[in-house]
């Protein structure tokens, strides 16, 4: 029962943060669309100028060689790309950890030295 209550509190916090964000971003979008900034229902691509039609051979859009050609489709890079990406992310985390731990140790050492001098 106690755990259920805690889960409920966590989920309420989730919903609160998500709700506030959704409201803020939607309001910002509405404001930007009313001032003339283009927003797109499909989420991708640039708007076509009025009166201009796309020109494709045979009047049909050709298929991209690799399929749909949208971002994040998931068939690019392969295993090697995944390893590179994972190494990059791990590297960033490792650099931050090393820098903070070094700074903390340096600060602790300096504090100890100052304490010894004052004694």
């Amino acid at each position, binding site marked *: 029962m106690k755990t259920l209550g805690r889960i409920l509190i966590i989920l309420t916090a989730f919903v609160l943060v998500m709700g506030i964000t959704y409201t803020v971003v939607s309001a910002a979008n509405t404001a*930007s669309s009313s001032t003339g900034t283009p927003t797109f229902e499909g989420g991708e691509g640039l708007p076509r100028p009025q009166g201009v039609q796309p020109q494709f051979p045979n009047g049909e859009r050709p298929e991209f060689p690799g399929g749909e050609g949208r971002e994040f489709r998931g068939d690019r890079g392969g295993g090697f790309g995944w390893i590179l*990406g994972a190494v990059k992310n791990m590297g960033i985390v490792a650099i*931050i950890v090393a820098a903070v*731990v070094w700074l903390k140790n340096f600060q602790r050492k300096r504090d100890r030295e100052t304490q010894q001098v004052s004694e």
Partner: protein
Amino acid sequence: MTENQIKTKNRTQTKLVLDVLIFIAFLIAMEPRSSGIPIHEWLAISILAVLVVHLLLSWDWIVQTTRRFLGKLNTQTRLNYLLNWSLFIDVMLLMLSGLVISEVVMPTLGIGLPRNFAWRGLHEFSANLFIILLGLHTALHWSWVADTFKRYVFQPIGRVFSTNAKKDVSA
């Protein structure tokens, strides 16, 4: 070993396993170009569920620090608390923007949300910020990570090898 010590040991081991799993899942989920959109989206939702367990395991610390936040508290704990909140909010932004631009999960559930560039931008920004915040979060808990790994991973492995070595000598 008292009952309390056993409980603490089990909780620490669970926390370690869970944190390692979250980190591995995060590494996979952060590469949607290679893992594919379905894995990226479903894995991110599973991470959300595991995060609830992660928060439940740290519940006592969260409650105690929240109570004492405006009172007497050392700088590192205060910083840690603020950083954890930032991480929580960032993960929520990441999840929400991910759900809005979702190509698999939301259509599967039959939910259609209005997409636009703002959500994609927010998703990319919060993902980049997440790596930095995760680095800081790990750095502030580094002594716990190092101690726990030493106690529950390296020392047991070392013990296994030393026992085998002793067996070889006695044989």
